[in-house]
């Protein structure tokens, strides 16, 4: 059964070839499922799910990457194709992916119970999306996104920088502000030249899978401090702040250059601010009024 999804304005297909697996493994993708293919002439990627498939050769190891507790073993084949083995936090194999060098097409086999399969398949989709998107001015970012009045505001920063608290305070103190995505939004330079942020089927621990989008007004790089202070970052600092927040294969030139150039295009239009903040209402008002350019938050 072939299913189609539309995320960040890009469509992709997931073809479930065996009876064991189905779209039920992709619950968080339900809001993004499409039935009518009219007007869609190209797919970002095509993914085949087939438990009976096994790779016929083994790749050379690029590395083992810790992705928040779970592990991705990455291997490259002679022709530049990739094999990626996704393991969960307990080290159990959940999914094996073999993808073309540009990630426009891949085949996966899944393993384990439904939870493991769902986890493995979602990881495969995120990688496919990020690595195929790099050539299409599209980034899968690690960020928390608030939206208000059609505008989007992205919070960057690893845990411990006050991101969750700042986001929670926005929702509490800025009337009309709502969460668009809490972990993995799509940021894209669209064909009309504008930079938009989109909700996605991936949102970390917060179940927030909104099929909505907003014009990106600004990024916030947070840091906890005993005071509130906001300052616009230079292009170089902004680049250094955004790049580590993007899903990218550093060893792959096509992907890395694609992501760098997309970040550059984003920075041509969107400011990045450095916010040293207390966990309070003033910090939200300061970031909201600065990024939105609005004096009142009503």
């Amino acid at each position, binding site marked *: 059964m072939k299913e189609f999804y539309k995320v960040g304005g890009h469509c992709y297909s997931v073809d479930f070839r065996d009876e064991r697996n189905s779209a039920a493994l992709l619950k968080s993708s339900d809001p993004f499922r499409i039935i009518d293919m009219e007007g869609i002439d190209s797919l970002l990627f095509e993914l085949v799910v087939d438990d009976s498939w096994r790779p016929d050769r083994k790749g050379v190891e690029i590395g083992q990457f810790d992705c928040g507790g779970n592990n991705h073993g990455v291997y490259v084949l002679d022709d530049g194709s990739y094999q990626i083995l996704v393991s969960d936090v307990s080290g159990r194999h959940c999914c094996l992916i073999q993808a073309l060098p540009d990630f426009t097409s891949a085949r996966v086999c899944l393993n384990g119970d439904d939870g493991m399969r769902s986890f493995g398949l979602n990881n495969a989709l995120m990688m496919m999306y990020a690595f195929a998107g790099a050539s299409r001015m599209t980034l899968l970012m690690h960020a928390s996104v608030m939206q208000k009045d059609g505008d989007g505001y992205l919070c960057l920063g690893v845990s411990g920088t006050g991101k969750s608290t700042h986001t929670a305070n926005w929702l509490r103190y800025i009337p009309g502000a709502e969460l668009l995505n809490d972990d993995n939004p799509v940021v894209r330079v669209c064909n009309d030249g504008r930079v938009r942020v989109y909700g996605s089927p991936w949102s970390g621990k917060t179940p927030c899978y909104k099929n909505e989008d907003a014009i990106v007004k600004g990024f916030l790089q947070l840091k906890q401090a005993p005071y509130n202070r906001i300052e616009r970052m230079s*292009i*170089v600092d902004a*680049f250094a702040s955004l790049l580590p927040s993007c899903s990218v294969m550093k*060893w792959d030139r096509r992907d*890395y*250059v694609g992501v760098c150039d997309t970040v550059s295009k984003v920075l041509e239009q969107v400011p990045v601010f450095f916010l040293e903040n207390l966990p309070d209402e003033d910090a939200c008002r300061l970031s909201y009024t600065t990024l939105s350019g609005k004096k009142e938050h009503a």
Partner: protein
Amino acid sequence: MKIKEGFEMRNICGENIIIAHGKENIDFTKVITLNESAALLWDKVVGRDFSEEELVRLLLEEYEVEQTCAAEDVKSLVASWAEAGLVE
């Protein structure tokens, strides 16, 4: 000396930024910027062997500066490239 494999200069919103890709550079997380003259030299020697003397000569061809001044600039540029791990 030579600029290491995988280092590449990209124009990021008007800034000349050195990015690093390739399996060897996975742990390279610095963001390095080059000014106009350093970027010009980078473009001329990337991908091949070069010497400090050659950089001085290239600089003198493009800019109206004293030889001693160009030599000093090149010396400090090469030192900073070496410190950042960009050349071998």
